[in-house]
């Protein structure tokens, strides 16, 4: 075989990672680099594509009956995909000291198999709805749903966060109208639905296009004046359906 040019140091590392000759520590570094360096990730994927045909030589063998049922039980047991994703979003949405607070309530999120509670107050046609999702998420997973009923002048909010597991923090609701200044609306307990009467001074803020957000706060709510102190767990825009 004719002599091939040497691989660059970067490509050699990508190839070694795809092949599996790196130590556990080096593998973790390579994984981290893949996450932050798309060029490197492409090289690894290209090497995986080159080497994976080796697996074609392994004959297909029917998996045993009943294995799917085992898998399905595991999916239910750790309610994984969506909640895991939500956890990552929430972590991504937070910084520094806020991280623990957000992570602790994020572990309480129960979403995957939980259909959002349908909120059906009267005044169809005028109702403004908002589905509140993690601000950093790429997959919109609703953590709260809100509906503003202009006839009753009430905001109906449902929390899809699992009740009872984060006694240390509260979830504070905010409306952020076009001027960008948050106004506190009150609190919503995990797992609860409640109708919150809105005072007259807030009514102009509750318009289509305004954002509804939830922040994670110490008991009693944000110690700052009129602005969240904790991480924003979820946000969504009011819109007519």
């Amino acid at each position, binding site marked *: 075989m004719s002599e091939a*040019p040497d691989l660059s140091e970067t490509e050699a590392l990508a190839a070694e990672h795809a092949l599996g000759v790196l130590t556990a520590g080096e593998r973790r570094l390579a994984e981290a680099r893949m996450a932050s360096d798309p060029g490197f990730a492409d090289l690894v994927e290209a090497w995986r594509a080159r080497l*994976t*045909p*080796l697996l*074609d030589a392994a*004959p*297909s063998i029917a998996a045993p009956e009943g294995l799917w049922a085992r898998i399905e039980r595991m999916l239910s047991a750790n309610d994984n995909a969506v909640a895991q994703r939500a956890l990552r979003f929430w972590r991504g949405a937070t910084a520094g000291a806020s991280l623990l607070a957000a992570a602790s309530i994020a572990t309480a999120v129960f979403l995957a198999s939980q259909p959002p509670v349908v909120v059906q107050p009267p005044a169809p046609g005028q109702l403004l709805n908002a589905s509140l999702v993690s601000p950093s998420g790429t997959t919109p997973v609703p953590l709260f749903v809100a509906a503003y009923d202009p006839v009753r002048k009430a905001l109906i909010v449902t929390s899809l966060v699992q009740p009872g597991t984060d006694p240390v923090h509260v979830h504070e609701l905010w409306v952020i109208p076009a001027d960008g200044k948050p106004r506190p609306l009150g609190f919503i307990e995990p797992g609860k639905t409640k109708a919150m009467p809105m005072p007259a001074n807030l009514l102009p803020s509750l318009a289509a296009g305004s954002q509804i957000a939830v922040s994670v706060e110490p008991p009693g709510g944000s110690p700052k004046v009129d602005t969240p102190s904790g991480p924003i767990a979820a946000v969504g825009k009011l819109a007519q359906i």
Partner: protein
Amino acid sequence: MAVATPEDLAALMTRVAAGERAALRHLYEATSSKLFGVCLRILSDREESEDVLQEVYVTIWRRADRFDASRASVMTWVSTIARNRAIDRLRARGPLAYADQIEDLQIPDSALGAEALLAAAGEEGRLRNCLSELDDRTEKVIRTAFFEGVTYEALARRMDTPLGTVKSWVRRGLARLKGCLER
């Protein structure tokens, strides 16, 4: 099992990423025989392979949102997960599993099934040809690393050869392999 095209599989992955369990079931039906074969090839133990296969689909379910169709085919992506999981399990058996001398390693090319022979006409055949163009020792080292996830350090110990030497064999072998596959 219906034959699924790469496009079918990519469409399924999108639905799996959205948390649709029925889509995962379809993916399982389309790919589990292949992946079970991969686990068995690496582990040679039915019970362990079943456990690993179960983990593989739970992993696919959890990480489906990270699948990027512009980077990899679904089959490569899920096969890589199966191989990595099986190798993790192999490594967990402990250092004793690596006590064999590399000369004793069996490369069961003769055990190919009909399906594998068919596949040999395609990508796998090309890869096999290119691997066979390497010197025997390098081919063996690359295959061993691939199927057992043996690190440079363990390879060097097994072969009683300095780590730097093993590393340069593998790197040179991989460079040649790439050149051959691109011909």
